[in-house]
């Protein structure tokens, strides 16, 4: 950022205007910045104001800011909405030559009241920077009556976020869709969700919910059950009739080819189609959904939910060609066929090898976890055995283990090389597994396997202890000397991670790869090293989450649209390094626990693949939505 002229960001005053020296060195505060890396002139946001350009019209900035927060003020409490209106009115009175001292005194009193007596955290926190402006730029407000300047605000832009929204890889307007649920408008809530997430029934079941970890209610009682609220909106509309997606706009020149009908591919396809482009997805498997279809078992995401959401996308005119693997992509031929851009979203479906002796032997009972799930989900019959050990600690390992229980395996044990605290699988999955009688052995890993007569017989394992952290930040497992033990089993499933199978994009134009063997793609534009070819999702990042892949699809569509239309992508604020959860007010919120859903009885679970987790009823969803504190964070900024 440019040199600070004045800042009240975070409540710390930095005043470098004529004759004033500031106590706090500006270098210790992290401000919002521009995604493009360009120069940000000035801003007014929830955490304060930051002026770097001495020419910035602070009064206009304040007026624009008040207008923006007024749009978000919901009107359900009088003080916030009427208070913001009164502040705008008073500034107007100043401009008309009203009595300055009285007006500024009233403005201070109104700002104070809005900050202590508003119903939600938004009202309380949003007006704070206005107090800074009145206090530290008093002269500019006083000068209004004498013909002080006010510009039309065209130089200003506005960005709205929230702690949950900032944590969401797809930046969903979470307070917005929760508010619509609170007002019993499930269908409108779903429309809002679909603006950033086109697979809400799936995400509402299988998302890792980083939003909930960021929810400010974590510090008060329990986070909002944001994922289950999304599911409630999706399920309610699904149960009704006439669910359909927004159809395409004016037809545009050019077709786009997409490889992979997983979350990234489906999302990009829908968005591009909605902009009017012709879209064809080439999918290797016989059904769409990617990892959702081939990886996630039915007791987590039922087939009919997935089928419905894929079908909705197809009905907007997206062509999906199943059973069409594209290991050898001829980009030139695709271009000759009329495709103007290509989005590669093949995911990461190759299970990583454990790297232990005996693994190279092809034998019965030695199974790759990803392949195991894919076979099962595509309908292959799997004979249950007596004992199976599953190696790994992520959701794939948990999916394998819990599926084995349902398939009739008598004794299922997970072996994970770190401890429970580092286990990457979601807590709900680990809890479900333990409830279903699955044993989890921590701090152990296989070092070799024994095969005889073409069958897996046993694994020799070694105990581990935790050493120094590795690149992932987690403590590295270190083998404990002389702690080997043998475990006999009928099957060993290896679920220790996945890698993408990179398609070859004709011989002359190789796709640039990263050192981990994933496709190299620009993090902002998703462009690969081949012109017109984009990539996103697990094939770029390595195995990650569904919602990240969905966001990659959203952004790929924006990027490809900008590329085909020959325009630049628009710039926006980045809050990287800024703690979006912090506000300068401290309101009282009574404790209230979250609504809970029912789970299928353990006794009823293990012989079938029926969905285990229940959803909210309409009234439960509305009750849970009432706990939301509307933590919108508004920033008005000047480039």
């Amino acid at each position: 950022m440019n040199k600070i002229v004045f800042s009240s960001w975070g409540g710390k005053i930095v005043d470098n205007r004529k004759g004033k020296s500031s106590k706090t060195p500006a270098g210790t505060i992290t401000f919002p910045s521009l995604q493009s890396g360009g120069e940000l002139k000035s801003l007014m946001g929830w955490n304060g104001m930051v002026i770097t350009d001495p020419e910035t019209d602070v009064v206009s900035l304040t007026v624009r800011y008040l207008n923006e927060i007024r749009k978000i003020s919901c009107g359900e409490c009088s003080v916030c909405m009427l208070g913001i209106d009164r502040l705008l009115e008073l500034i107007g009175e100043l401009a008309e030559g009203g009595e300055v001292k009285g007006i500024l005194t009233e403005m201070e009193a109104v700002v104070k009241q809005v900050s202590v007596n508003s119903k939600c955290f938004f009202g309380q926190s949003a007006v704070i920077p206005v107090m800074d402006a009145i206090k530290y730029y008093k002269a500019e407000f006083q000068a209004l009556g004498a013909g002080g300047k006010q510009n039309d605000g065209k130089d200003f832009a506005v960005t709205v976020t929230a702690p949950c929204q900032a944590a969401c890889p797809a930046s969903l307007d979470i307070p917005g869709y929760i508010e619509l649920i609170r007002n019993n408008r499930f269908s409108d809530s779903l429309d809002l969700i679909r603006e950033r997430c086109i697979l809400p029934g799936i995400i509402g079941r299988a998302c890792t919910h980083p939003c909930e970890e960021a929810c400010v209610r974590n510090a008060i009682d329990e986070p909002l059950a944001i994922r289950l609220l999304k599911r409630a909106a999706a399920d309610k509309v699904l149960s009704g009739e006439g669910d359909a997606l927004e159809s395409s706009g004016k037809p545009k020149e050019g077709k786009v080819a997409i490889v992979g009908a997983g979350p990234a591919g489906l999302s990009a396809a829908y968005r591009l189609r909605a902009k009017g482009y012709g879209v064809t997805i080439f999918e290797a498997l016989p059904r769409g959904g990617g990892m959702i279809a081939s990886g996630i078992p039915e007791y987590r995401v039922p087939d009919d939910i997935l089928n419905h959401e894929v079908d909705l996308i197809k009905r907007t005119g997206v062509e999906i060609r199943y059973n069409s693997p594209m290991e050898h992509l001829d980009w030139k031929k695709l271009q000759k066929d009329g495709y103007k851009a290509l989005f590669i979203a093949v995911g990461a479906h190759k299970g990583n090898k454990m790297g232990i002796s005996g693994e190279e032997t092809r034998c019965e009972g030695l199974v790759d976890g990803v392949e195991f799930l894919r076979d099962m989900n595509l309908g292959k019959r799997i004979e249950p055995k007596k004992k199976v050990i599953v190696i790994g600690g992520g959701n794939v390992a948990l999916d394998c283990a819990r599926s084995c229980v349902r398939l009739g395996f008598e004794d299922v044990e997970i072996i994970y090389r770190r401890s429970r605290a580092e286990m990457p699988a979601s807590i709900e999955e680990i809890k479900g597994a333990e409830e279903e009688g699955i044993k989890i052995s921590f701090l152990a890993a296989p070092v070799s396997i024994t095969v005889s007569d073409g069958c897996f017989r046993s694994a020799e394992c070694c105990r581990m202890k935790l050493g120094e952290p590795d690149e992932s930040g987690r403590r590295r497992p270190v083998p404990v000397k002389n702690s080997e033990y043998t475990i006999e089993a009928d099957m060993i499933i290896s679920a220790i991670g996945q890698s993408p199978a990179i398609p070859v994009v004709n011989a002359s134009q190789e796709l640039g790869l990263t050192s981990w063997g994933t496709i190299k793609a620009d993090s902002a534009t998703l462009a690969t090293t081949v012109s017109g070819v984009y990539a996103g999702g697990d094939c770029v990042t390595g195995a990650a989450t569904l919602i990240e892949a969905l966001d990659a699809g959203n952004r790929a569509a924006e990027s490809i649209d900008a590329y085909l239309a020959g325009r630049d992508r628009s710039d926006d604020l980045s809050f990287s390094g800024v703690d979006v959860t912090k506000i300068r007010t401290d309101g009282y919120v009574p404790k209230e626990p979250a609504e809970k859903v029912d789970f299928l009885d353990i006794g009823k679970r293990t012989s079938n693949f029926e969905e285990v987790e229940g959803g909210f009823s309409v009234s439960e969803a509305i009750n849970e939505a009432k706990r939301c504190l509307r933590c919108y964070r508004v920033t008005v900024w000047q480039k």
Partner: protein
Amino acid sequence: MVTIVIDGRKVKAKEASTVLETARELNIAIPTLCYHKDLSPFGACRLCAVEVKTNGTWHLAASCVTPVVEGMEIKTDSDTVRESRQIAAKLLFHRYPETEAVRQVARELGVTVPERKGEKHECILCGLCARTCNEIVGVKALNFEDRGVGRDVETPRIKFDPNACIGCGSCAFVCPTGYVSMEQKGDKRIIWDKVFKMVPCSVCGRYFAPEDQLRYISEKTGVPMSELTVCTSCR
């Protein structure tokens, strides 16, 4: 029961009751505009503000939505409380100067309001109609119009769903300003611009209830329509 300290008095309060309910049981006066004892509290008008302390710091809170907790200290009449209530009332009076319910409560809180009666019946967004329709009647025909990012509606307002409404008039009964009004013209009742056909009492002939309302009651209770066509006076 929990022990709390309210205006310096140590008292026992019913667990899970609100500060407002507890105060009113103790005959401590707290002004309200959007509160009704039979509805869930909403915290819209902000006039019931009190100061509470539960772990070291005093905070302003709306007493209608604040449950009492063990050890809570409460101030219902401090300078801070009076200032907040007065400014909240001033803001309401400034926006709705001609609405009688607002004029009355503003006058009580020390705002200068001329003695004559107000001439308008504005919607003050108290939400009583919506809560009544959702919680007592159950048809959920009234709700707040939504605002916020990408949904810039100029003025927040109550949204009416004519398909859900049964014409019972509960919202008109509970509205403090007279904004929600019901008109009867012969065998028709008009409310929220929707026209309802009224059913005459089979005994006295007076048009007493909308057909839609009786049908709703019949569906909910299982009592056949034919047994519902007698008005409450003739029963």
